[in-house]
């Protein structure tokens, strides 16, 4: 099992009446709610937490890309990952990911990911999301019906840029480049492991299967609601006669809260869970799915209604509902262990993206919950999927000998060297 401590970096000061007074947390969020001086503290605090998670023994620390979004402060996850590369040593840097259809030209992603891989000594796990409709279409103006074609071309260009040792001309529909010849090049050859966040598109299932990429479902609605979608993926893996059913072909994001008892978990984290699900996920439904963004095949598969964002309904859910419905896995270490095991077995996933910092949770609570998880839950889950413990296709392969940041030699006195 691979566990990644993931932070969305939410804005923690959305007002109590945010739902009533504001249309959306995303796309047209009220810019007056942003306080730059406050963000200075937040960014640094969130990066401290990611670095702290690395000390707890998580396999990876994770960041992602969102735009104009009140629950995500990372339009550029690569900037955050670059600072983490310097301040951490062994942990994987999971950038999940760069919305490659948005970069012009997309070789920018090939270059920046290569830089991250080089700086970190081969610790990059790279993600290529199509991007949500909110980010991709409404914030970044991509034409919905052409987004997937553009994404596909960006993917092909990036992979070729990584794989080719000769400069090549790329005559794409969306990218015309005479000399593709990226410099630097990734340490992990021919390319870093690739994870593809998806939301139930059949096309994305196939894409992952065809390229041996890990499919990750970054849901906030929990593992019980994710079964239909993940089953759809595994059915597809079987239908397409993939070489194996390795659980590392899939990952799942889960909101997790650990305390010493079940009751303490509610007492400690209830308000922050409430903040996240009720304020952070308050997205105007008109932004959820620009017409043409999803393929007809995906809509017709009929599965969308089962895992459509249920933003409006969270307000009615109690802590008990959230726990029982699996939106969150919360409670004592033993409770959490049981539910996690159920998650891992029922979804058959090898990668868990642990959402342990939730909404407006202060650092000390996130640290406490993460520490309990790392010390009392994670070790008991490590041994699941023993038969595939050596499946390293979907994880980074760092250099054995890596640089220690900040280890310059003393300044020599070169003036003392006599001239010839």
């Amino acid at each position, binding site marked *: 099992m691979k566990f990644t401590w993931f932070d969305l970096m939410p804005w923690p000061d959305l007002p109590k009446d945010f739902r009533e007074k504001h249309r959306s947390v995303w*796309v047209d969020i009220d810019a007056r709610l942003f306080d730059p001086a406050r963000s200075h503290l937040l960014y640094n605090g969130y990066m401290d937490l990611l670095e702290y998670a690395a000390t707890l023994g998580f396999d990876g620390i994770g960041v992602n890309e969102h735009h104009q979004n009140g629950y995500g402060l990372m339009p550029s996850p690569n900037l955050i990952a670059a600072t983490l590369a310097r301040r951490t040593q062994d942990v994987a840097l999971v950038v999940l990911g760069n919305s490659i259809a948005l970069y012009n030209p997309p070789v920018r992603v090939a270059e920046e990911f290569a830089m991250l891989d080089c700086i970190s000594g081969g610790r990059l796990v790279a993600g290529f999301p199509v991007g949500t409709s909110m980010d991709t*279409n*409404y914030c970044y*103006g991509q*034409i*919905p*019906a*052409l987004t997937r*074609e553009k994404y596909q071309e960006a993917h092909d260009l990036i992979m070729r840029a990584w794989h080719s040792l000769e400069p090549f001309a790329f005559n794409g*529909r969306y990218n015309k480049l005479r000399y593709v010849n990226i410099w630097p090049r990734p340490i992990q050859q021919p390319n870093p492991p690739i994870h593809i966040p998806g939301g139930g598109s059949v096309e994305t299932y196939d894409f992952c299967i065809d390229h041996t990429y890990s499919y990750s479902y970054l849901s906030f609605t929990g593992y019980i609601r994710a079964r239909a979608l993940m089953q759809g993926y595994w059915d597809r893996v079987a239908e397409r006669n993939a070489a194996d059913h390795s659980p590392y072909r899939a990952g799942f994001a889960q909101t997790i809260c650990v305390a010493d008892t079940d009751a303490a978990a509610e007492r400690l984290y209830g308000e922050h869970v409430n903040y996240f699900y009720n304020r952070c996920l308050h997205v*105007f*439904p*008109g*932004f959820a*799915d*620009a*017409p*043409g*963004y*999803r*393929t*007809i095949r995906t*809509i*017709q598969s*009929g599965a*969308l*209604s089962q895992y459509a964002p249920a933003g409006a309904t969270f307000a009615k859910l109690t802590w008990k509902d959230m726990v029982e419905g699996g939106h969150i896995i919360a409670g004592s270490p033993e409770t959490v262990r049981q539910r996690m095991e159920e998650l891992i077995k029922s979804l058959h996933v090898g990668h868990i993206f642990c959402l342990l910092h939730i909404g407006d949770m202060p650092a000390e609570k996130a640290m406490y919950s993460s520490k309990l998880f790392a010390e009392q839950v994670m070790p008991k889950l490590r041994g699941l999927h023993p038969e595939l413990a050596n499946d390293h296709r979907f994880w980074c392969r760092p250099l054995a000998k890596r640089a220690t940041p900040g280890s310059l030699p003393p300044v020599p006195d070169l003036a003392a060297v006599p001239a010839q």
Partner: protein
Amino acid sequence: MELRTIATPHVPVRYFEGGSGPALVFLHGAGGLLPQDPFLAALARKYRVYAPLLPGYGDSEDCSELRDMIDFTLHSWDVVEALGLDDPILVGHSMGGMIAAEMAAVAPNDVSRLALLAPAGLWLDQFPIPDIFSMLPFQLAAFLFYDEKFGAQLMGAAGTMNFGDPEWLKMFLVRNARQLGTAGKILFPIPDRGLGGRLYRIKARTVIVWGENDKLIPPAYAERFRAGIAGAELVMIREAAHMVPLEQTAQVVAALDRFA
């Protein structure tokens, strides 16, 4: 009106044909056509009407080969060619008006009569056009019609809205994705693909028709179109909004009498 199919180089095209009189091609807006479209019916009393559906509209096949404005423009010329028409009266509403204007701009010697009904295609910063793509279905009628009730009735008749029913919802989402997915290629996120810089090429006798109460593409755009096309006449219609062909059908049909 009869629904027929004609082959074109990219995709088979579904089109309505009916009526008698001079040949008239009507290009629909982003919402497509209504079943038994009353505006087409009214046109058919005076003209031989040909109303092609863009790929993805109605039951017509989608076409991934059409991606941008020039593709849409030339495809529409392909349709005219396939129908064997020579210089038909060219009429377009909203997105269809944008395509009709482009057709007249790229082939100015092939269009002598052009009617633009609240066409899209320009952008004025002082009058931003609302984003139809993020509007919720039940918000649309208020934006599109002068008389919201009439509009809701008309749109409701096209398929009774029932968002609680998953099967209906799926049908609705598929239709929306097909139609607005196609429309988005030339309208998303800003319905401007450079037409303003090409309007000067239009040689057709042009009439521009606008609803005085258009909230989607406000009448300021009517003036801009009139100023951009040499000799264009502007007909403003009262008690009508963006769906002026459905709201004041007789007056819009009468505005075309000048081509007789």
